[in-house]
């Protein structure tokens, strides 16, 4: 089988950045969920999920992001998404999740926004 999702996690300031490459779907979303839980337990209340190199995302992937948001909300945190792929952006637009996850064009912009705004989504 091919490697369908690569995950790298690093920290920028107080923000955990999860960098994804490949496809986020029913086959791979469990690994993303684990990476998010690990990042949150390591003290990351604010997460950036970098999806610049994500080719496809399905509803499982979106569900995993919502699950992550639930966890960071418990710690007064939030999740920002980095997305430049129009097809991925379309998924967020069509579902309306673009209003739930702030979307940025670069990792630096997303980190900066979270770092300065802190929790921006759910009070």
């Amino acid at each position, binding site marked *: 089988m091919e*490697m369908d999702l690569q995950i790298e996690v690093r920290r920028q300031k107080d923000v955990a950045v999860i960098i994804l490459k490949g496809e986020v779907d029913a086959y791979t979303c469990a690994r993303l969920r684990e990476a998010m839980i690990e990042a949150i337990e390591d003290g990351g209340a604010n997460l950036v999920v970098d999806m610049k190199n994500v080719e496809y995302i*399905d509803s499982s992937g979106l569900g995993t992001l919502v699950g992550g948001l639930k966890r960071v909300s418990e710690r007064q945190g939030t999740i920002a998404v980095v997305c430049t792929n129009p097809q991925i952006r379309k998924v967020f637009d069509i579902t309306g999740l673009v*209003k739930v996850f702030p979307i940025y064009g670069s990792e630096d912009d997303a980190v900066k926004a979270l770092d300065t705004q802190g929790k921006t989504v759910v009070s």
Partner: protein
Amino acid sequence: MARTPRQANLQSEIHNLQLGLKSSITIIEGVMSRKNGQKDADPATAYTADIPEEYVLSEEVRWLRTEDLNLFRYIRDAMNKIQVAFVSTYPPTECGIATFTKDLLMSIAKYTPFSRPIVVAVRGAEEIEPYDRSVKQQIYRNDRQSYLNAADFLNASDVDVVNIQHEYGIYGGEDGEYVLDFVARLKKPVAVTLHTVLMEPSKNQKRIMQELGKLTDVLVVMVRTGRQILLDRYGIDPTKVTVIAHGVPNVHRASASVVKRALAIQDRKVISTFGLINRGKGIEYAIEAMAEVKRKYPNVLYLVLGETHPGVRAYEGESYRNHLLDLVAKLDLTHHVRFNNRFLALNELVRYLCATDVYLTPYLNKDQIVSGTLAYALGCGRAIVSTPYLYAEEVLGDGRGVLVDFRSADAIAKSLIELLDNPQVREKYETAAYRYGRRTAWFNVAVDYLDMYRKAQLRREGRTPTKIVPQAREEVGARE
């Protein structure tokens, strides 16, 4: 019945435990495979060819705990809602369009957890169909009044957009013309997915298509060829026609040899064809080709997966299948051709497809504008040999498959042998097919449909989109 906070919490805990258990199993499997000195996962032992149970968005949203109520409200208010009504045959009715509709409905529902798509099922009066709960209204094929009743039902409902699945044979009247009564009565935005676009329609068939073009907001075809035919031969308004690919299951690629072991056919070269069987499939030519392939590959196995089309069985019984069985016996191929005369569940079907070395559609009708079975084979990343009917000609173009002449056992045999002789060439076709198939996975197609519904709504409101851009299929072409 409303859940108490305690019940909600309990359910949430159970759910979390289930998820945790799933994750734990995944981790344990990973550890075990690594302990056994395997790479990440040895496909020989780990691969089952099953599509994983999806952990969907709607599930996550619905399972938010009471203490997450703010988040739940926030997400509910933020997410887009759209009530779609599908008008079509629907399972358990056995037909490709019924399956298509259910797949589409489920794919769309996964992205719209706060909406509930419904179905107006089209059926014969004599059929007894235990439909699921999504079916809210029924049209009896030959009962003209039921078309009007269904339109009235939808007009009075909170449905935002109606998606009709169209094939001339589904609806009552001459060439299914009763569907026009229904469309003329509807006051909602309407999109029509066309499963047949005839190159040489009769006068009445042409009239029906042209009326559909006038009375509805969007016509969806699954390949660009279909769009061109609508413009050139029917004079349909080009801004109303969009291309959205046929969806395919989300299957991750696997080596055929791995899956063959699970099916105990590891020593065979496997060729397959699946779908509801009828005389238009041209399977007799494939069987004749097997006689030639067998000479070079005595271990070849041709799987014909699927039962006789119920509509065909009603008027000629199993005479076509019996004819094929006679041919198999005559050509001494009883150990080389296997029929699986029953309905296959999706996972089972996918397993057979993944075990296939070469998938074959020897169909006879040049005008065939869509084939769900060919779409599935692409989604599973198979090397494909096909006759050049319109759909195959387009989706297998650009090196995604091999096209052979109609009604030519020799041409089929030659192509099969070439592919079996050359694993590297086969691999090249598999990769190209898989790439195409990934882009047309149901989860991508559902997004294109949701986008299209929005455009249908805009058009009905008089805010006509300047151009409805052909979507999934066009993007496929554009990216290659």
